[in-house]
């Protein structure tokens, strides 16, 4: 039984359905990656899991409980953390304040979690007093992931974490994400860089025009001739 399950998700932003009967799920200590061409509804599927989309059909389960009716904020307080693709840091706040805001809902001592984040992203410790808006793209992404980790989530959802960063930074970010996975967190990622993402994925979902086309382990999808031809550029 997977930890976070989206079942038959169907819905859109008011007009036509963007995702149809979409199934996405991830287990604890696993990385699941959603890939697909532009406009396939990858980000929409993720928003549906977070409750930022009104579903016409389908249900969402977290740890076996039906959370379909919960608001995004409630889901966050139930252990779901989300890193949006754009504007995912508070640019006028320092790195440290960004992390503090991530832990806003927590009333206990957050220094230990913050130290864990600094261990994971040492550069953030160095720049803790600097404004997040002054950091490079890759460092900002680290702040964004760090902020999300401050709630001590059980599920971490990342919307294209490597968009706009250099290949070297991308490799490093993936490396860190694997480290996060090892702590037992379920990770769900939407990615443009499909090949690299599937490389680190336990589970892969290929979406096309809002529907599941292929679902398999990352390894199997990379080996699949059809997937490679259509979505990975040969």
């Amino acid at each position, binding site marked *: 039984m997977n930890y976070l399950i989206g079942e038959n998700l169907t819905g859109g932003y008011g007009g036509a359905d963007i995702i149809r009967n979409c199934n996405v799920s991830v287990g604890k200590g696993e990385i699941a990656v959603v890939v697909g061409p532009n406009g396939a509804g990858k980000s929409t599927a993720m928003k549906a899991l977070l409750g930022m989309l009104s579903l016409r059909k389908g249900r969402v389960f977290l740890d076996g409980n039906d959370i379909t009716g919960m608001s995004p*904020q409630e889901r966050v307080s139930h252990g779901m953390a989300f890193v949006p693709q754009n504007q995912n840091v508070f640019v006028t706040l320092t790195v440290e304040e960004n992390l503090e805001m991530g832990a*806003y809902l927590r009333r206990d001592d957050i220094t230990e979690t913050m130290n864990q984040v600094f261990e994971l992203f040492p550069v953030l410790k160095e720049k803790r007093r600097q404004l997040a808006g002054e950091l490079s793209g890759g460092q900002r992404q680290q702040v964004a992931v760090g902020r999300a980790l401050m709630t001590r989530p059980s599920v971490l959802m990342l919307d294209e974490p490597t968009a706009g960063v250099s290949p070297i930074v991308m490799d490093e970010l993936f490396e860190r994400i694997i480290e996060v996975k090892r702590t037992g967190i379920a990770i769900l990622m939407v990615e443009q860089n499909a090949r690299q993402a599937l490389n680190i994925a336990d589970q892969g979902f290929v979406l096309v025009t809002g529907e599941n086309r292929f679902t398999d382990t990352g390894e199997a999808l990379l080996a699949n001739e059809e997937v490679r031809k259509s979505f990975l550029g040969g």
Partner: protein
Amino acid sequence: MENSIDLLNALVLISNYVLIPSLSYGSQLALGAVGVTLVFGILRFANFAHGELMGLGCTATIFFTWWFQSMGISHSFFPTALFAMPFAMLITILLVLAIDRSVFRFYRLNKSRPVTFVVASVGVMFMLNGLVRMLIGTDEIIFRDGQKFLIKAGLFKKMTGLNEGLALKQTQVLTVVLAVVAVFLLFLFLQRTRTGKAMRAYSDNEDLALLSGISTERIVMVTWIIAASLATLAGVLYGLDKSFKPIVYFHLLLPIFASAIVGGIGHPLGAILGGYIVAFSEITVTYAFKKFITYIVPANFAPEGLGQLLSTEYKFAVSFLILVLVLLVRPTGIFRGRVL
């Protein structure tokens, strides 16, 4: 010798008529502008009711002052209004929270566009406007008591032997001191406390703040509490320093908005700087420099005219001019705030 005395006279003259009044007027504008800018940063609309809110805070203070005076509570040195103000602040805060509940909350839940909020705030402005006039009338009211001057012009002349006198009103010093204290406390709150940081985070990126579990209603409530307190303080200081006239607070709206925009709207530090810029410009441009110039130039160069760029009636034109210039040249303001 004669020369240096003239220079001293010129310096005292300019301090008395330009520097000191600008400093206290600037502090009053700054306090108002910080309130406007905070509301803009969190609720994302320009609150046209802010000037009337200052008037209302002052009205409440006057009533408490009269009540205190009737009970025999007053101070030989400080104005009674100073002790009445905290109670008036409480009233103003409660009223503003009630207005938010009954007016702005509706539009917030409907996710209305900023312009809808602005128009609603104009409605609130007229409502407060009427409320103040119903309560206290339209006449000018002087509610200052205690000691008026810290330095009297005549005494200053006698002590220094200069031709020019320097008068320092207690209200001017009070204004500057209280403004500094209020701003210091505000920044301490915004920089150091959990709620203050959450306010900055909310102002920076609303969606991410919501994802972090920051509650809109709580942030909005704290913002109104601060805005109402600052408005009361600004309104009372202005009323003490000059006099209380309901219409003045409507007029103050323009220089206050100019201050907030010059500094960069949504940026508290910018609003403070903006307040002083607008005040100094307004007073400098409308001051008659004839006497000042006569002191500093040789006798035969003394000007014939008043040396006044604009007559005092046009002082609002200065705010307008600054506003237009800033919006044309640097719409984000000095500190790069948001664009309206």
